[in-house]
């Protein structure tokens, strides 16, 4: 079953800005899906329409088969939203924020309190339950919004940049938690600017740019499109010039660092054989850039070129 289906979704704001130019997107039930794009690409607008915070101009939205034009309440019941901006009452107590949210979904108070305890404990916020939410740290506020989004146990959880401004330790603990609830059956749609996060968590991906979907594929398929990778080799002994390695583009960035471009069909064995023949000893090896990041930049740059081309033509 499709957790989310968007058909020719369009949004033009009052000022004339065309934020979405006809988006088609499908997310399968149980998926961990990444929706990526540069700032202003249309991600938050698309999420806003799905969650009823933004009125669409045209198109269809279905959440677990419920069309938002005809079965809005059923569609809303399936969704939990963690928005980009903090949007809870900063003068309210932590526990009340979660319990009240459950109430809006018709969950009686005793059950809401049980669930609030469960999710606040899982997200390490139970000790803060009586605190005024304004006093929480940035990471805690993000986790509070996750607890609030989960309290009605939605089938589809949408996270709009949930780890923005969160330190790496908390980010990784959030990843573990999200993997766990996805493993328990919750479909997750994630937008993030940390592409390492998307690569590590998500199985499927769509990239949106200038209001259009420019890629929609399995993460593995998409990464396969990246033909070349740049590796950084740290050398045991300094060298004065880059060694000659036939078939490889090599750059000496400092006396103990070499950058080598390797195409996917070549592999690394041949490279190491050539390095050995040149008497160059390698102490460590790492990717120069995150693979998804490289692909993302390439796709978005191509998208911009296309748009500029169209602009000139008209």
């Amino acid at each position, binding site marked *: 079953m499709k957790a989310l289906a968007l058909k020719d979704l369009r949004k033009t704001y009052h000022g004339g800005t065309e934020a979405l130019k006809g988006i088609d997107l499908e997310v399968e039930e149980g998926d961990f899906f990444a929706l990526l794009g540069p700032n202003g690409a249309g991600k938050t607008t698309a999420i806003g329409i799905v969650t009823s915070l933004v009125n669409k101009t045209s198109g269809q939205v279905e959440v677990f088969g419920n069309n938002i034009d005809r079965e809005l*309440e059923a569609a809303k*019941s399936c969704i939990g939203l963690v928005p980009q901006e903090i949007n809870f009452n900063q003068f309210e107590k932590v526990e009340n924020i979660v319990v009240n949210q459950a109430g809006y979904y018709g969950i009686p108070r005793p059950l809401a309190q049980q669930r609030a305890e469960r999710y606040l404990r899982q997200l390490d916020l139970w000790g803060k339950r009586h605190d005024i939410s304004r006093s929480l740290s940035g990471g805690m506020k993000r986790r509070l919004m996750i607890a609030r989004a989960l309290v009605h146990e939605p089938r589809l959880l949408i996270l709009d940049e949930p780890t923005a401004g969160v330190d790496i330790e908390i980010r990784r603990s959030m990843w573990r938690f999200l993997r766990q609830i996805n493993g328990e059956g919750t479909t997750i749609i994630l937008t993030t600017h940390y592409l390492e996060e998307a690569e590590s968590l998500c199985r499927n991906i769509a990239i949106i740019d200038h209001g259009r979907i420019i890629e929609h594929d399995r993460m593995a398929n998409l990464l396969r499109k990246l033909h070349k990778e740049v590796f950084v080799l740290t050398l045991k002994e300094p060298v004065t010039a880059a060694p000659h390695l036939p078939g490889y583009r090599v750059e000496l960035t400092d006396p103990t660092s070499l950058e080598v471009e390797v195409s996917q069909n070549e592999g690394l064995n041949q490279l190491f054989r050539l390095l050995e023949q040149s008497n160059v000893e390698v102490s460590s090896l790492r990717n120069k850039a995150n693979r998804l990041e490289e692909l993302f930049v390439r796709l978005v740059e191509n998208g911009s070129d296309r748009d500029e081309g169209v602009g000139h033509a008209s």
Partner: protein
Amino acid sequence: MLPRRQLVGLWTIVYREVTRILRIWVQTLVPPVITMTLYFIIFGNLIGRRIGEMGGFDYMQYIAPGLIMMSVITNSYGNVVSSFFGAKFGKYIEEMLVSPLPNWLIVVGYMAGGMTRGLLVGLIVTAIALFFTELQVHNWFVTLSVVLLTAAVFSLGGLINAVFAKKFDDISIVPTFILTPLTYLGGVFYSVQLLPPFWRDVSMFNPILYMVNAFREGILGVSDIPLGLAYAIIVLFLVLLFTACLVLLNRGVGIRE
């Protein structure tokens, strides 16, 4: 009968609003106590003694229902306009907008919150009035129904104001420039029979005149307006404002992009 799910949703909004009123009691319950005490001392006691009788009652008794109604009106309105605008400003209105709560239930929830504060303050002002004068309720049904309906009307008015408000200034413009003058000219301190015919006719366009007089009829048994007409006007405003709130929320004015 509402489904249980919707009853829980409605109760959640009302519970949240009432706890807000009680949490910030210094802002919500104390100011009307001070203002109304001053009104009773200055207008009722000091000036009122020189005025003598009005409508067959001493002046303090005559203005007491008007002052109670004035506090109900301003507090019902003030509660919803500040609470709803605060939710918009802090973006936590989105908590309700993403939930399956129907819009009419959100309107009823805020209306109930506004009515609660209006009635709480009305009760407190009544208690203060009893320190200054004697009040015996002439007709309980009229008294209670008029105060409830009036509180509902002004709660809805506050919601409409909050929907259109874009900054904090916008939530004080209507109370300052429209609500206060209409209340003062709505027969709180005088009988419209004292006015020249032209201004008496002009006063008939002021809806607050009908509410104040119907409430005075309930408590003292005197009114410048026929009771049936007063009820008709109040109910008409209730229906119009409720419909307006619903249309605004359904269209997402001020709350959805």
